[in-house]
């Protein structure tokens, strides 16, 4: 019994160390950890791996101002910020000829200052207008970026799924199966692509709607008993495309079949066969 328990729990270790088990699932696994030295050892080893994952992230320097903010939040005095303001050297040379400045020159300087301040005022107004314009543009750009990010996220998901499928289809050990509709569903048809290393891709159409409390189950046909590959849920049009893993220890399949079974699936086929085909 203990071994059976352990097999059921073994795959939880990865989820546990990544923090993806929550609530009751986590408590249940922790209860198992208390009794299983093997899982405990694996969790310890994998925790180390998870700790290394952040190093794979592209490294970016934080903005310089953040340091002062962090220190200020902890109540650090200003002095502990790294940069200290250097004392400006006294501009000694300015005083040398001060007494020789003529009255005219003083007036000229005052007029120049006045002109300068008028010019600066106009420049400030102009700057404020430009900032207003730029802020508007920035907020437009930010909303466009949000939209782009959403689209990118959708595209990333589609690409992730496509990559999974490509991994199976480009496997060197790929085997293909054409599934034909059986008497229970003569119009149905399906295709399967299987690779021991990368799993199973399965697609079918024209599967009849399921009665309540029933499910379709996909089987690997082997020289021994059929092995369940998983449950399949066709859409309203009777279509399905899904990927499955090969259960460990499954012999090379001689074919693939789909049967109708009680909801939740069964360990060995009991219901009518809807689709079946042999490995080519």
């Amino acid at each position: 019994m203990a071994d059976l328990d352990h097999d059921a729990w073994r795959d939880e270790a990865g989820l546990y160390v990544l923090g993806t088990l929550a609530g009751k699932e986590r408590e249940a696994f922790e209860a198992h950890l208390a009794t299983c030295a093997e899982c405990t050892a694996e969790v310890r080893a994998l925790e180390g791996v998870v700790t290394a994952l952040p190093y794979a992230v592209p490294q970016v320097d934080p903005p310089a101002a953040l340091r002062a903010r962090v220190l200020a939040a902890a109540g650090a005095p200003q002095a502990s910020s790294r940069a200290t303001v250097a004392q400006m050297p006294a501009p000694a040379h300015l005083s040398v000829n001060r007494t020789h400045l003529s009255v005219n020159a003083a007036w000229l300087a005052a007029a120049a200052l006045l002109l300068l301040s008028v010019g600066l005022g106009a420049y400030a107004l102009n700057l404020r207008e430009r900032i207003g314009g730029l802020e508007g543009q920035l907020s437009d750009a930010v909303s466009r970026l949000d939209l782009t990010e959403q689209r990118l996220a959708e595209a990333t998901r589609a690409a992730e799924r496509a990559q999974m499928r490509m991994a199976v289809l480009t496997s060197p050990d790929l085997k293909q199966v054409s599934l034909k509709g059986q008497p229970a569903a003569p119009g149905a048809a399906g295709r399967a692509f299987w690779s021991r290393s990368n799993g199973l891709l399965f697609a079918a159409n024209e599967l009849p709607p399921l009665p309540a409390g029933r499910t379709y189950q996909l089987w690997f046909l082997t020289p021994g008993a059929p092995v369940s590959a998983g449950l399949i849920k066709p859409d309203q049009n009777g279509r399905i495309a899904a990927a499955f893993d090969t259960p460990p220890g499954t012999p090379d399949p001689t074919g693939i079949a789909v049967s109708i079974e009680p909801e939740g699936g069964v360990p060995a086929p009991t219901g009518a066969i809807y689709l079946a085909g042999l490995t080519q």
Partner: protein
Amino acid sequence: MWLLWAVIAGPPGATAADHTTLERMARGDHEALAELYDRHSRLVYSLALRIIRDQGEAEDIVQEVFSQAWRQAGRYEARRGNVIAWLLNLTRSRAIDRLRGRQSRPEAASDSLLAIDIPDLTLPVDEQLSLEGRASRVRAAMKELSVLQRVAIELAFYEGLTHVEIAERLELPLGTVKTRIRQGLLKLKDRLAGAM
């Protein structure tokens, strides 16, 4: 295994130095906080930015993490673990909380993160591995994973998705997701340890 420890434990002597720094922080030494920040802010900020993908929020997270380190420096000693691992764990947990809050999904997976003990990684590190060196080792190891293994681990680690959500996102059965995550992590462990 030494490489894995080297990768995790940080630069030589950093673990011991971090402990001394935290002891000084516990006594209210702001210079020590500045040192801790200078040593680890890049890694903390980069992780926060990768998860939250927003510079302003990533900065907020960095501030929160170092504030928490400042407040809890005194209690840290009892945990006898690796300081950078603790900081990164706090960072990931806070970033994922924000990510989940943003998507208004209340069921946070990150509470389970903080429950996990940080392994004691204060093992001898005799190798001069720079931050960049460690980063490239881990990246190289990630590249050796199958697409499915890598994507499943990344969705769990950076997006904070539960295994049920990963299975939905990738349209894969739950069992496949669980198996591939574990296989992927074991392979990473093997690659990081075997690079010797």
